[in-house]
């Protein structure tokens, strides 16, 4: 693995940890959901750099796509029930 790939990988890993921290610490629930989706997105880019495009695709489709959508869908339902 050459230096460029390694530095991109380390950068992505640091970004993942940062966004994961944001997910825990965010005060607004929508921010936390988006940050959780972003963790998956960074993970899928990392998988792509590690030459695993199939895994990256699964991560992007399920982790950052479907799950984030589902969180927002349920959030909408819960808010609709409250008001």
């Amino acid at each position: 693995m050459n230096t460029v790939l390694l530095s991109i990988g380390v950068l992505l890993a640091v970004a993942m940890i940062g966004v994961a921290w944001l997910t825990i610490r965010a005060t607004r629930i929508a921010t936390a959901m988006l940050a959780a989706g972003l963790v998956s997105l960074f993970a899928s880019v990392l998988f792509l750099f590690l030459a695993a495009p199939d895994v990256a695709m699964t991560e992007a489709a399920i982790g950052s796509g479907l799950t984030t959508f589902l969180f927002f869908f349920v959030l909408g339902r819960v808010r609709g029930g409250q008001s």
Partner: protein
Amino acid sequence: MIRRFAVFLLLLGLGAIFADLLLGYTPSEELNLTARYYAEHTAQDLGAANIVTAIVVTYRGLDTLGEVTVLFLTATIIGMVLARGRKHRALQRQLPAAGELLTTGSRLLVPLILLLGVYVFVNGHLTPGGGFQGGAIVASAALLLLLTDPLKRFSHRLIAVMEAVSGLFFIGLGVLGLVYAGGFLDSRVLPNGAFGTLFSAGVMPIIYSFIGLKVGAEFTSMLTHLAETEQS
């Protein structure tokens, strides 16, 4: 205090395990025995450009059948649990209307997302991705529709028929492999065809398309069950 200490100890232990793994890691220069077999034999034996798909659909087809079964059971159980809490009321409470941006955007995006999903599982033997990924993408299009209009209803009968038919064809093609080729789920029922074209790799693209439809139908059925449940 004791709890904090326990968490700290747990983190320390995990850190030690991962540090050990990281320090002991040496990148291997060549493929191991199993990987080399797949890398050398896939193209000429099965004619699939994507080795991962060849492993998932043919070499380890039985495992995929198990995965599909697990997903089917999950969808069924979710449907069963959520159907119990559902109240049969014609009129539901008023929900706030979706924004203009979401409505217009979903009208543009849903066909494109569906097309991408179908592309991913039809080309599973050529490009990265396949049935599971394509099915998830198709289901996310259905979820986008639900997000725009939470009261939208999909036909349960259509979803159930699609899932059952795809499952039956998946098993049926596997049994055909038992009769006409080397064994259960062998993809060489049809000729391998020209390497790298859409109609190649035997029945692999057909099987993966059915898996894609099945996974998409299962995810969609879970989502619609969730959407139709009234909170009590």
